């Protein structure tokens, strides 16, 4: 179906159960459009998600998909992509899934640089468990589990990614459909690990990081003189605590993805009916 793929082909017939107005609708639409725009179709696309509101995405999209356990979506995506380089692998997660329970995997997925796309729906709160602080919640954000605020600084996912040697680091805002789609598309096209942190507001539990807040505070990098290949400029922007940026913060166009570095280019699902040719050499080694 490759030539006439439309983004709606990536839509399943299941209606999302996200709250009306949830930022995740826009985040997902942008992902589907970006997949279609880059010439993918549901049969060659594999979507992996973990747990939380973001985890539901595999149900609402139409593609090969695995909805796994909390925080482990990146390792699953890594296995899928290495085993079959022909697949377009997209991993989706939330700020809890990616930066808390899965934080260890995040850092290592970034440095492993497997050619896949990681979209984090960052709403700065735990939605599905009804409103607790997340790793990206503000220091003074009052929630049911942090009545006086977390009293610890939020995680800066972009800084984590940059320090771990990230080769593509971007941020978008789910409501800005065109820019968001464009940014995810760039992440897909990037040869390596494409990471996009998406501001995807929670209308039910987060009354601080709202649509209005982001709309008023976001600075689009395309309207600045930022050069995404300039790591120093990226560092400056990423560590700027006073601004919320949208766009590609950093891209290493020379980066070599894991599979290329390790010479992996074939589909590991293709195996012979018996032991592979040359298998007896494995035994002879032990003489």
């Amino acid at each position, binding site marked *: 179906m490759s030539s006439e793929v439309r983004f709606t082909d990536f839509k399943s017939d299941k209606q999302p159960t996200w709250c009306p107005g949830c930022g995740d609708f826009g985040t997902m639409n942008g992902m589907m459009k970006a997949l279609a725009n880059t010439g993918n179709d549901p049969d060659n696309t594999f979507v992996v998600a973990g747990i939380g509101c973001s985890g539901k995405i595999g149900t609402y999209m139409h593609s090969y998909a695995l*909805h796994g356990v909390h925080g*482990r979506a990146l390792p699953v995506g890594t296995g899928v992509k290495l085993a*079959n380089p022909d697949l377009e692998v997209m991993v989706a997660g939330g700020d809890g899934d990616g930066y808390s329970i899965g934080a260890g995997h995040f850092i290592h997925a970034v440095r492993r640089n497997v050619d896949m796309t990681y979209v984090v729906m960052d709403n700065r709160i735990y939605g599905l468990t009804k409103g607790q602080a997340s790793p990206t919640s503000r220091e003074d954000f009052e929630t049911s589990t942090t009545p006086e605020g977390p009293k610890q600084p939020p995680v800066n996912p972009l800084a984590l990614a940059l320090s771990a040697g990230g080769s593509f680091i971007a941020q978008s805002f789910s409501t800005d459909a065109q820019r968001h789609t464009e940014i995810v598309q760039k992440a897909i096209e990037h040869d390596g690990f494409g990471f996009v942190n998406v501001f995807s507001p929670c209308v039910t539990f987060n009354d601080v990081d709202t649509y209005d807040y982001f709309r008023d505070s976001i600075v689009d990098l395309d309207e600045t003189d930022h050069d995404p290949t300039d790591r120093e400029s990226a560092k400056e922007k990423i560590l700027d605590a006073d601004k919320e940026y949208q766009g590609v913060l950093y891209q290493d166009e020379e980066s070599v993805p894991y599979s290329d570095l390790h*010479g992996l280019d074939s589909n590991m699902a293709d195996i012979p009916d018996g032991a592979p040719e040359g298998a007896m050499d494995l035994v002879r080694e032990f003489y």
Partner: protein
Amino acid sequence: MPDDLNWAIGGEAGDGIDSTGKIFAQALSRAGRHVFTSKDFASRIRGGYTAYKIRSATDRVESVVDRLDILVALTERTIDENLDELHDDSVIIYDGERTEMEDIEIPGDMTGLSVPLQRLAEEAGGAIMQNIVALGAACEVTNFPIENLDSALEKKFGAKGESIVDNNKEAARKGQEFVADEFDHEFDYDLDTTDNDYVLLNGDQAIGMGAIAAGCRFYAGYPITPATDVMEYLTGRIEQFGGEVVQAEDELSAINMALGAARAGARSMTATSGPGIDLMTETFGLVATSETPLVIADVMRSGPSTGMPTKQEQGDLNMTLYGGHGEIPRFVVAPTNVAECFQKTVEAFNLAEKYQTPVFLLADLSMAVTEQTFEPETFDMDAVEIDRGKIVDDDEVEAWTDERDRFQPHFSTADGISPRALPGTENAAHMSTGLEHNALGRRTEDTDVRIEQVDKRNRKVQTAQEEEDWSPREYGNPDSNNLVISWGSNEGAMREALDYLEEDDIDVRFLSVPYIFPRPDLSDDIESADEVIVVECNANGQFADVLEHDALTRVKRVNKYNGVRFKADELAEEIKQKLQSEEVKA
């Protein structure tokens, strides 16, 4: 019982004990002798006592015994550590010129051979070869043709250049000549050689070899003793067959990467040990519920918690059998010797894909680090058959779609096994999830669908129970009223124990069980025997519990949990005592 020689080299970790022992084991194997090795090692890189032990005979040997004939002692402690196994005819080779060994006392009537290992090594080109001097000395003591050692040295040092090989050969000659010239002594040991060709390998290597033979192309793991050898074996080899080994950041990642690769259609595995299998537990249920074929090897060590990482135990049986929340259909396969580590690994991949479920390969430290000789045909690559189960191709998809043309990856079939479409298959895009789901793989809380899917998954196990052969292997006297049952690596020691028992006129029927779940129904065997003993390397008798439950009867138990595998003679004694005891029997 084989007319065997028990040899060991011991010293401090970092002294090259392991590689020296391996060279001698290889020399023996190349001379057509059977070899069975074991290791005493501590969980540290340098310092502390460590030893490499070899039992060797022209007949097959499959266990260790409480006897040490020749000991190369690089430290005084080595003698103390092995005092129980040394006997009056034992020969101890040591370097009496080293200050710390000057005042050494050779116990009892044993023969102490003071060989200037370090000095002779220096004469041959470097003190580093002192262990090789000792090997040369051992050759003289045992009248073992030193040419066999040469070929093992060539194999070990060949890559480092001819002069290194020659220096080592020279070092061995110096050790041999010193013993011949300086000691006017007839030794009781005379090692025969044969024309047989053997290969020498350990269980971890056999698991890795089995995985490649079975078409495994993806391995993700995190280093942990004693499973690391599986990963080290596959690294550098699996790539030659188009595969990849990934050292993950932790075990949680390792099993999930392996799961991802399996979803993509690769034959995929991970291997770990106690603490690692705990971390992986979360994902067991996801593997089973998403119906992903995955092989998970648990090379058991002494637990719980960090336990004794370098010691033997069969303590994780319950973990693999019951681990994980909820009820998880799974297979647990437990190879009983090094060769079976190969064969059962191949089988594990077939079971995983045929039944689309996790298969636990339950190995243990004793097998994993034990090098054993085998005829090369034992690892028969031509006999490897690959059964990928119900994978549907592009043309078959339509037969499994619903009225709206949606592929049903969890379709409830009569045998419980659903069609499986690998990503890339046209018009079969679908999701799988750890949530309870319907035939489409979509989340559901519908009570009827829940029951249908649970039953479907359990039905796979029933199908396997009926279709596969889960029989135990039988040894000893089939008509005996004394029944002994064991699983895992105890088989070798137990088989030899049968000989010892026979000497005492005790006959025993022995069943060695390589399948924990599904497993053979031994109820009739247990009920019809007068005495039933279950042998296992753990304190509480986890397999005995299972068998008692199956047969609704009580069995006697022989358990060992000091961290060391069973020895044949010791096992025979324990069984003798159990048979004579008045312990409870229903």
